[in-house]
C-alpha cells in the first residue's frame, strides 16, 4: 500500500488541540492584464502576443469558453472591489479566501492564455516562461503561502525540459504542470522525457483539467451544452489515467507522483475495476505491466477533491472516499471559480478528525513536501 497512508503521523500533525489549517491544492491567480507579463517576456513575443495572439487547436471560431455559467467562470462575489478580474488582486484573495479559511498553503494553478495548448511551440514556451516568473514575482514572493508550479507544454518536449530545469534551480516551485489535453494521450513515449525529469527532480506532475487539445472533449464528440461538456472533465482524466498506467509510465518511473486536479474522484472506482478486469484478460497485450493497474493507481496517483460529488445519500460519498483511499485525496477549493468548494461545507458526509487532517492537510504536505 501507499507510503502515505502507512506513514505514522508526526507529532506536529497529531490532533493535540492544534487547529486544522488547510492546504488548498487549486487556487487560480489571474493576470490583471497581459501587460503584467511584459517584464518577463522578450519584446519579440510581446509583439507576437499583440499582433497574433494565441494559436490554439480549437477547430471552430469562438469555441473558447467565456462566459460559462458566469462571467469568467468566476464566483459572482469574487470580483475585486479595486477592479480587475477574479483572482487578479492578491489583497482581495487574502481577505476573501486565504485568511478566513485559514489556508496554510495554496497551490497556484494558472489557466490564463491557454498556455498548454499553444500550437506555436516557441510562443508557448515564451509565455510559459513569463507566467512561471510572474507566479513568483506577483504571488509567491508577496505571500509565501502561495506556491508556484512549473507550467510547460509537453508537445515541445525539449523546450519543456529546458524550462523545468531553469525553474527547478530556484527551488521555489513545488510541481510540474502539463496539459490534460496534449496532442496525444499522456502515456505516449514522446512525453516520457518530462516524466523522467520530474522523477529525477522529485517534483509531482500536476494535471489540471480543461484546455483545448483539438479533439472533441468527450469520446462521443462535441457537446451542445456547457453542462454536458462539464462532465467531460471526468472522462478526460479517466482516459489519461488509463493511458498513463497502461502505457507503462508508473512502471517505467517508479518514483513519479501524479496529481489529477479538478477532475473529482467519483469515477475512479469503476474506471480502476475495469482496468484491473481487462488487465487480467488481456495481460499478454501489455506484458510490460508487472502489476495490476489498481496497484499503480494507489501508489502513484492523487486526486484533488473539487468538484466533489454530492450523492443523495451521505453514506455513498463515504463509500467512495473509502474506496479511493483517504490517503489519495487532496483538498482543493478552485477559488475563485463558480464551482468553488468551501472546505467547511463541501463534504456532505461525516469525517473523523484524523481523516479531515489527512484530506485537508497532511496528504498534500506529504506529496508536495511542505
Amino acid at each position, binding site marked *: 500500500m501507499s507510503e502515505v497512508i502507512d506513514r505514522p503521523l508526526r507529532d506536529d500533525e497529531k490532533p493535540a488541540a492544534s487547529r486544522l489549517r488547510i492546504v488548498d491544492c487549486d487556487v487560480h491567480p489571474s493576470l490583471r492584464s497581459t501587460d503584467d507579463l511584459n517584464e518577463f517576456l522578450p519584446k519579440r513575443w510581446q509583439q507576437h502576443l499583440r499582433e497574433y495572439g494565441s494559436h490554439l487547436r480549437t477547430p471552430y471560431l469562438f469555441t473558447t469558453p467565456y462566459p460559462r*455559467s*458566469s462571467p469568467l467562470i468566476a*464566483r*459572482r*462575489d469574487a470580483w475585486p472591489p479595486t477592479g480587475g478580474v477574479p483572482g487578479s488582486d492578491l489583497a482581495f484573495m487574502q481577505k476573501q479566501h486565504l485568511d478566513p479559511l485559514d489556508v496554510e498553503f495554496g497551490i497556484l494553478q494558472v489557466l490564463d492564455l491557454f498556455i498548454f495548448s499553444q500550437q506555436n511551440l516557441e510562443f508557448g514556451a515564451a509565455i510559459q516562461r513569463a507566467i512561471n516568473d510572474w507566479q513568483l514575482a506577483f504571488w509567491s514572493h508577496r505571500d509565501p503561502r502561495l506556491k508556484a508550479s512549473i507550467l510547460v507544454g509537453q508537445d515541445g518536449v525539449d523546450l519543456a525540459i529546458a524550462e523545468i530545469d531553469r525553474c527547478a534551480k530556484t527551488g521555489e516551485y513545488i510541481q510540474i504542470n502539463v496539459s490534460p489535453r496534449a496532442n496525444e494521450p499522456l502515456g505516449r513515449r514522446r512525453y516520457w522525457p518530462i516524466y523522467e525529469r520530474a522523477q529525477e527532480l522529485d517534483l509531482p506532475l500536476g494535471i489540471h483539467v480543461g484546455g483545448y487539445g483539438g479533439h472533441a472533449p468527450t469520446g462521443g464528440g462535441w457537446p451542445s451544452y456547457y453542462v454536458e461538456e462539464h462532465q467531460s472533465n471526468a472522462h478526460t482524466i479517466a482516459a489519461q489515467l488509463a493511458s498513463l498506467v497502461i502505457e507503462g509510465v508508473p512502471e517505467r518511473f517508479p518514483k513519479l507522483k501524479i496529481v489529477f486536479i479538478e477532475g473529482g474522484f467519483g469515477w475512479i472506482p469503476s474506471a480502476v475495476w475495469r482496468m484491473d478486469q481487462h488487465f487480467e484478460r488481456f495481460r499478454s497485450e501489455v506484458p510490460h505491466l508487472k502489476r495490476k493497474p489498481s496497484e499503480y493507481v494507489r501508489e502513484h496517483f492523487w486526486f484533488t477533491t473539487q468538484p466533489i460529488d454530492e450523492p443523495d445519500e451521505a453514506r455513498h460519498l463515504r463509500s467512495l472516499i473509502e474506496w479511493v483511499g483517504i490517503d489519495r485525496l487532496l483538498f482543493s477549493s478552485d477559488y475563485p471559480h*463558480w*464551482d*468553488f*468548494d*468551501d472546505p*467547511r*461545507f*463541501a463534504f456532505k458526509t461525516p469525517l473523523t478528525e484524523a481523516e479531515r487532517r489527512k484530506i485537508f492537510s497532511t496528504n498534500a504536505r506529504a506529496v508536495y513536501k511542505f
Partner: protein
Amino acid sequence: MARHIVARTSEIPPGGNKVVDVAGRDIVVFHVNGEFFALLNRCPHEGAPLEKAACVARLTSPEPGVYERSRVGEMLRCPWHGWEFDMRNGQSWFDPKRFKIRSYPVAVERGDELQKGPYVAETFPVHVEDSYVIVEV
C-alpha cells in the same frame, strides 16, 4: 415576532438589495418590481453570500425548442454553484422539498403610519413622510 425597520424604500433600488443585521442574523432584503423580499443571506448548500446572487427570470421549456420566461427578476441564482431559489418563499427550484432559504415577512409602511416609538422618534425624526421596509424576525 418583532418588527424591525431596516431601510427606507429609497435605499434599495429596483433590482438591488441591502444586507442588514437583525437580531444577530445576516439578512438580505431584495427589491424586485416594486416588492421587497427578505431572506437569510446564506445559501443552504455551501454558505455563499446571497447578496451577490443574480436576480434572474424563471426559464421553462414545455417542449424542446419552446422557451418561456416568467417572473422576471424574482428568482435568485446563487453566486457560486448557480442553485436557483424562489425569492418569495426561499424554496429551491430544483428540489423544493429538501432545500430552502429561510425567508422573513416583509412590509412597507409609510413613516407617518408607523407606530410612534423609538424608531421614528430617534432614528428618522424628520422623515416621517417616507416609506420604510420592515422585516419580521
